[in-house]
């Protein structure tokens, strides 16, 4: 009787162990399936974000603001100011395309139609709308203090203008507060340029006047080490900001969102130059 009981209990324990093993194995397989689904979803989201970022980067390079780093220190921004409308149209149509045909869970922020870039690690913002091009640095050694020069080159199909400094605070080139500013203009009757060392503690301003003494372009260097171009004509514009150790140039805002509702959401910036 006792032996029979013992056998029954032994078999019960054995079968319970088998059942427990089977359930554990089933749970493991289910969790494995869930984790691979999650990995796959994350992979798709990252790939979609990358595709949209790269599309935005290419449209910006072609029509908005072409950004390059020269000798890992100077940053060059060039644009054709007559392309602003086309740029905005292409951003809008690309946004429509990705939500209908490409990465359907991705979207582009509406402010992407405004051209802007952030220079890292100096936290210097460059923005451009028709009529205005601005370089804005933060006060401090690590931002405005890192700007050593500005080179502005303009090409337009108008008579070559003359320079008229309305505010001028110059310094010797050896002064640590001096910023070298070079402005060149290529017009229909030749090229002219002016190069000066300006005091970064004051606002200096130069106008480019046409033959009727009307300002076509006004360039201001304002505190702290900022640059503002105000213009009223279609032109090719190139601005080189003299810096050091540029690591990354990206969009100022997170322009790309991939949203799967409550499951997951990622936001990312567009990287124009890295490394």
């Amino acid at each position, binding site marked *: 009787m006792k032996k029979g009981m013992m056998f029954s209990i032994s078999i019960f324990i054995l079968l319970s162990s088998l059942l427990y093993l089977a359930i554990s194995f089933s749970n493991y397989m289910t969790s*494995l399936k869930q984790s691979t689904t999650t990995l796959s979803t994350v992979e798709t989201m*990252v790939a979609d974000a990358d595709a949209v970022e790269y599309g935005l980067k290419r449209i910006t390079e*072609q029509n908005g603001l072409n950004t390059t780093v020269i000798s890992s220190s100077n940053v060059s921004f060039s644009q054709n100011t007559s392309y602003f409308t086309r740029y905005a149209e292409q951003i809008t149509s690309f946004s429509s395309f990705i939500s209908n045909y490409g*990465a359907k869970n991705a979207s582009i922020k509406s402010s992407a139609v405004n051209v802007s870039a952030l220079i890292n690690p100096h936290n210097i913002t460059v923005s451009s709308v028709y009529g205005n091009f601005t370089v804005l640095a933060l006060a401090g050694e690590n931002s405005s203090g890192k700007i050593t020069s500005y080179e502005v080159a303009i090409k337009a199909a108008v008579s070559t203008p003359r320079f008229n400094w309305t505010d001028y605070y110059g310094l010797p080139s050896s002064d640590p507060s001096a910023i070298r500013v070079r402005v060149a203009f290529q017009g229909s009757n030749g090229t002219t340029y002016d190069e000066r060392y300006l005091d970064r503690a004051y606002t200096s301003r130069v106008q480019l006047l046409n033959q009727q003494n009307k300002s076509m372009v006004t360039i201001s260097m304002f505190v702290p080490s900022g640059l503002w171009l105000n213009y009223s004509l279609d032109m090719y514009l190139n601005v080189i900001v003299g810096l050091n150790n540029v690591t990354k140039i990206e969009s100022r805002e997170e322009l790309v969102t991939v949203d799967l509702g409550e499951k997951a959401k990622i936001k990312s910036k567009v990287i124009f130059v890295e490394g």
Partner: protein
Amino acid sequence: MGKGYVFTMDMVLSIVILTVFLISISFFLSRVDDPYSNVVLQKEADDALIVLDKYGDLSTLNSTVIANSLNSMLPRSVKWNMELNYYNYSSGFTLAGNNTFGSAYQQAREVVSVDRPFLTFENQSIANYCVARLRVWSG
């Protein structure tokens, strides 16, 4: 003698049960595909599309260029099929063309498919809005 017989039978029975259990698990595992293999395939396909796009191969829309790059990038054990659809935009998107090339995937047991939207440019304007669909599977 009787007791020994019962113990032997008990031991044989437990070995048989354990063997059946192990064979069942082994059989079940052999039937189930490695769930990570599809994730790895997806990663490989996504990476291949990123490289094709960023190196400018996709925007050529040239099947030979794209096929050569894919063959050099993907492992030999991976088979692929590429489908390109390109659209024009004029107040709406219209299909301008498509191109499918690579191995036939219809007979493949499990196919992983990834998409990537991309652009082609002409005179600094967008010429085509495109979607590349890359299907990959273990051959």
